[in-house]
């Protein structure tokens, strides 16, 4: 699970806690830039899908809310950004914000229906909405270009400085930057009382009601958050590839992003990112290896992960860490807020 409650020893503790992460966030893009510049595109793809998976994690991993139609928001974000730039407004950052807004709005409207049902019904209702939007976009060829995709996007330079180049360098850093920003916000959300509430709802909605939580309202809030982040991810994908495919709305993508999340490990802050990386890279390698039967390999990875790495890649990492150093348990068990009270520091050591 994730540290949902950060230590209270404010900013100093924050740096101690996040220092390693920040280093990582700087190191990885730098490494790509220096050693694998010809992989900018793949890396950008991973980053955008990573954000998408992260957004789904807020629902599936934290709020315990199931969705098989999350691509709806990804696609809506993508088409919003796409249509903006096709019709003359190619400024990327405002494009992202507007895409986020639209996706969030649609999320808000549909949320009422989605939180009214649970389990399979919830899965199917989200799926249903996704399929309806897909059909609509497919019909509205005059607007979306239908299955030919949305063409003729002209995205202006980021901050008026960085042109989108063929090597995908600008695209890469732009995406990573936005991802990092969204990740920080998402982390905030997860670490907040609201985030804790979501975990409570995932664990035991009945009890949440019993402590006076208006459960539906909280779930709707989570749904809107997820929609917004997914919208941004979609917009990123559209702007960096200067193209929007109908597939960005498809059930296939909804399923794929769920698979990514589960591969990485749902309910863990890095689950989405790791999952997206694992899935995309595995698919890329395997399909280069064998363009015809790569699916077998991908399926195999999924099966093996479930059998031998419950809780996804991060899950197995964590349980390994625990086996190696038993004390780690306390830290991973989110001792965070408790560190405040001496009583539990004692306990923590014990």
């Amino acid at each position, binding site marked *: 699970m994730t540290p949902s409650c950060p230590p209270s020893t404010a900013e100093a503790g924050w740096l101690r806690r996040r220092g390693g992460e920040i280093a990582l966030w700087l190191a990885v893009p730098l490494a790509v830039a220096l050693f694998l510049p010809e992989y900018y595109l793949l890396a950008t793809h991973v980053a955008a899908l990573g954000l998408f998976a992260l957004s789904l994690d807020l629902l599936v991993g934290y709020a315990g809310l199931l969705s098989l139609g999350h691509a709806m928001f990804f696609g809506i974000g993508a088409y919003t950004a796409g249509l903006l730039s096709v019709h003359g407004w190619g400024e990327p950052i405002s494009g992202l914000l507007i895409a986020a807004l639209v996706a969030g709005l649609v999320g808000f409207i549909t949320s009422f229906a989605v939180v009214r049902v*649970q389990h*399979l*019904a919830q899965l199917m*209702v989200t799926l249903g909405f996704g399929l309806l939007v897909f059909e609509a976009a497919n019909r509205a060829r005059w607007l979306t270009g239908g299955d030919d995709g949305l063409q003729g996007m002209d995205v202006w330079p980021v901050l008026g400085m960085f042109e989108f180049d063929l090597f995908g360098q600008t695209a890469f850093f732009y995406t990573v930057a936005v991802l990092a920003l969204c990740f920080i916000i998402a982390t905030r959300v997860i670490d907040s009382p609201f985030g804790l509430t979501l975990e409570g709802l995932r664990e035991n909605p009945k009890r949440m009601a019993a402590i006076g939580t208006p459960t539906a309202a909280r779930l709707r809030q989570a749904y809107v958050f997820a929609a917004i982040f997914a919208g941004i991810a979609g917009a990123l994908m559209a702007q960096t590839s200067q193209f929007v495919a109908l597939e960005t709305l498809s059930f296939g993508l909804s399923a794929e992003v769920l698979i990514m999340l589960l591969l990485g490990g749902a309910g863990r802050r890095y689950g989405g990112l790791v999952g997206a990386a694992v899935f995309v890279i595995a698919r890329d390698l395997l399909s280069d290896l064998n363009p015809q039967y*790569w699916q077998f390999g991908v*399926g*195999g990875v999924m*099966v093996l992960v*479930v*059998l031998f790495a419950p809780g996804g890649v991060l899950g197995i990492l964590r349980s390994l860490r625990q086996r190696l150093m038993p004390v780690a348990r306390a830290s991973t068990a989110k001792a965070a807020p408790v560190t405040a009270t001496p009583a539990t520091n004692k306990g923590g050591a014990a």
Partner: protein
Amino acid sequence: MLAILLTVLFDGLAYGMLLFLISIGLSVTMGMMGFVNLAHGAFAMFGGYVATTLMQRAGVPFLVTLPVAFALVALASIVVERLLYQRLYRRGPLDQVLFTVGLTFMSVAGITWFYGPSQQPVVLPAFLQGQVSILGLEVGIFRLFLVAVGLLVAAAVVLGVERTRFGAKIRAAVDNPVMATGLGINVGGVFALTFAIGSGLAGLGGALGIQILGLTPAFPLKYLVLFLIVVSVGGLGSVGGALLAACVVGVIDMMTKYFLPEIGSFIIYAVMVALLMWRPHGLLGKKS
């Protein structure tokens, strides 16, 4: 006009029966063990390939291939269940989703390896082709056959569940696995057998469906949504529900295609959402 309406209605029912045959297993096993088996479509596909292989390679007559498809798929499913699935019953639904989708991918690629990516041919025996006119109504013989088989299976399943001891055990297990275990029912065993029968029926459906659904390695993914719609709208673990839902889906599908072709699949999805809003546990599903 009435004749047209009846024809379309009948075609819809025939289509529905097919969906029912394939989906019923999924519905019961999901309702019973809460096991999310998204690889269910793969079992249907295997049934189809068993049938075509027997027909092409061994010249076995179509009707004979049907029971064989049922048996082989049922057998195979027992192996899968004992070997893999039963390890996952204690896991969350998400793990089950990841696992079964993974299996589906593998089976898709595997089938492509053996049979190639393209459509499998199936030639129906002459006596199942063409149309007969019943009370002035032009009816496809094969579809008539489908409806017959569908109703037969539905009847058998209902009787089996309602009347036999095994059926009683199934019902107990569906209602409350824990209590059933308490009553000394070997829920694991009951489930394995139910699972096998359900998968077998899927295989049967797959074999019957080649004519209408076609048969390519993409089958399990292509129709997954359709099966899930039937299961969810019908209500988990409800035989009658699955039958009802399948017919509703089939009829609506045919109706829209005939009368409002330009609307495409909108209506079917909209109806699903509406029905689930109205009855979240499905038309005949048990409140949990």
